[in-house]
């Protein structure tokens, strides 16, 4: 068992070293008056993206999404980065944990070239 664990450890270490990332597409969200702009954000399927969330309010907010499996606190008048994906096509809901009734939005994941 110790040998298996050791091998698992080497594998994990290798994956850790290999997990350097390349450039990823960037998208922006603005939080103002406890509302997300845009409230619907389209991103490509099967691709990791970087979501920059600007909190223009004077209170902190937590970007929260069970669908996206992400939680991130954004301090007042600051911005934060949330990495999401790669995702399958679909609609993924997110909300601001401190203002869940107003701060709500959707990430709409589409295959490239798939327009409404």
């Amino acid at each position, binding site marked *: *068992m110790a040998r298996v664990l050791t091998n698992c450890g*080497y594998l994990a270490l290798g994956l850790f070293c290999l*997990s350097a990332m390349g450039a990823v597409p960037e998208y922006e969200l603005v939080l103002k008056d406890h509302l997300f702009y845009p409230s619907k954000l389209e991103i490509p399927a099967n691709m990791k993206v970087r979501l920059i969330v600007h909190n223009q309010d004077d209170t902190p907010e*937590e970007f929260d999404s*069970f669908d996206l499996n992400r*939680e991130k606190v954004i301090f007042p008048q600051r911005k934060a980065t949330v990495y999401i994906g790669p995702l*399958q096509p679909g609609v993924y809901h997110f909300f601001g944990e*401190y203002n869940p009734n107003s701060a709500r939005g959707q990430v709409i994941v589409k295959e490239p070239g798939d327009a409404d």
Partner: protein
Amino acid sequence: MRREVIVMLVLLTTKAAADGFVVDKVYHPIVLPNEQRVEWRFMSRQNDERNVLAQRIGYGHSLSETLTLEAYVVGERDQEDNFGLQAYELESRWMITEQGRYWADWGMVFELEKQHKQDSWEVTSGLVMEKEFGRSSLTLNWFMIYEWGKDIHDEVENEFRLQYRYRWMPQVQPSIEIYTGEDFVGIGPALMGIQRFDGQKQLKWELGFISEVGGVTKDHTLRFALEYEF
């Protein structure tokens, strides 16, 4: 970063040995700032000879966006069936990588424990990894434990924990858990869930039933944890 790699190498190549409660909790790498929590863990281990009961109550506070510190008092039922204070523990969790940024999310856990009224100490360092596969998450923990003191035999132990979880809905997330260490290999089903309230307030719960699979005698552990974050 070089120092962390060296720590990981030491952690991952240390020979296993050990004693105590192997089934406990699978740690996740994420840390959130501005967070306080109180936690109660319950573990009941039943084998052919006796039942061992352990409970721990803790209070934790985030120190930064990536670091959190938690203090515990641990109670256990002794050989005479008396339940009493057993140990004190300090635990720190460090989120090394941003959630979702790399192939997997990485963190570390550090613990310092002292047995009540005994010169018996234990220091633990653990590597935590979590990888998403769609709506499923694989979480791995590797722990290296060093015990020392006049009332305990000095030794190094090694433990491994695995959780494969399906994120079905926030309140109900079924999983399979595996624990190894000190000649124990256990596997069993578990459930975890989160109920959110106002603001950062949320109640997390975990329930698992782990059976030893390496031996011929009965050895089951029921574990339960409640964590209130605010």
